[in-house]
């Protein structure tokens, strides 16, 4: 078969003179297989074709994977640049210590906005958050995880009220409160809607608010948010994905952020 693929020098003019062509100008079918030459069996030829196709597919998949990885890395760099000075807060924890975002750098933070007089949503979301943290803590390779609760009702939720309330949930869930201005600033930094309802005769009221748990990475970059529809298992899984994505792009040095 290979013999028939060798280029054959053109000995004849393109147009034959009238009359029968000389013997050497007989048109030859170059790819005609001379009789008796061995051919590869069909299955071997299919294997070769399959291997070529497989190699092409693998090459394409690799290129696509690399491209996605680079896109993720670029996006993370952009988010880091945006994060500096954004999504920050100045609040107090239940021990009275001043806390800002910088205090939690180096840890993955799960942050939920709520209030202690909440009828049903906040307890359910905090149960879910606690369960997600428990699931994630089972992985010894996981970097430190800090669950945070920020009140949207600073008038009633002082340090003592928060501590009482949060006792029922994960032991490391840390409550943050502050002056109404500080809380308002924190909520707006995370684009959280907050609206206190009308007071009744007892002075009781509920606070309407966005129900979201935010994920912030160890560099202080907002990475994900989880709403009512996510289960604890989904939150844990998505956090693991974010963490794996985080390992791709190197961290910015923290010297300037301390």
């Amino acid at each position, binding site marked *: 078969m290979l013999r028939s693929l060798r280029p054959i020098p053109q000995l004849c003019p393109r147009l034959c003179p009238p009359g029968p062509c000389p013997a050497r100008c007989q048109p030859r079918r170059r790819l005609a297989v001379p009789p008796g030459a061995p051919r590869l069996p069909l299955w071997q030829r299919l294997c070769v074709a399959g291997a070529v196709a497989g190699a092409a597919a693998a090459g394409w998949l690799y290129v696509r994977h690399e491209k996605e990885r680079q896109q993720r890395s670029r996006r993370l760099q952009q988010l880091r640049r945006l994060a500096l000075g954004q999504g920050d807060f100045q609040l107090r924890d239940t021990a009275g210590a001043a806390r800002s975002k910088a205090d939690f750098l180096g840890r993955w933070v799960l942050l939920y906005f709520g209030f202690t*007089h909440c*009828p*049903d949503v906040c307890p359910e979301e905090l149960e879910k958050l606690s369960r997600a943290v428990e699931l994630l803590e089972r992985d010894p390779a996981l970097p430190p995880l800090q669950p945070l609760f920020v009140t949207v009702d600073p008038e*009633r939720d002082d340090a003592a*009220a928060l501590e*009482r*309330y949060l006792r029922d949930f994960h032991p490391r869930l840390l409550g943050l409160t502050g002056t109404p201005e500080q809380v308002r600033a924190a909520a707006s930094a995370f684009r959280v809607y907050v609206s206190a*309802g009308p007071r*009744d005769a007892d002075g009781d009221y509920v606070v309407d608010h966005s129900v979201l748990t935010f994920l912030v990475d160890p560099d202080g970059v907002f990475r994900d948010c989880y709403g009512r529809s996510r289960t604890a298992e989904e939150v844990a899984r998505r956090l693991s994905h974010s963490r794996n994505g985080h390992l791709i792009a190197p961290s910015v040095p923290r010297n300037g952020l301390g």
Partner: protein
Amino acid sequence: MAAPTKAERKACWGARDEFWQCLDSHGDDAAKCEKLRRAFESRCPQQWVKHFDKRRDFLKYKKKLETEGYSPPEAAGKA
């Protein structure tokens, strides 16, 4: 007025669930479930009672949309 504790929350939710089950089995006839309504109102802060009443209305409306489909309200000045 301190926020309800975990035990108080559970008691309130339990009373609410019993009341709602009664309503479900009596076709939302509140008259048949007076006793449970009073228990519900005594175990939950007033704000929560209002909140859960609204929630129930919403859940019923949602169910109605899912089963019957959405029909826009009749407008007064229809063309």
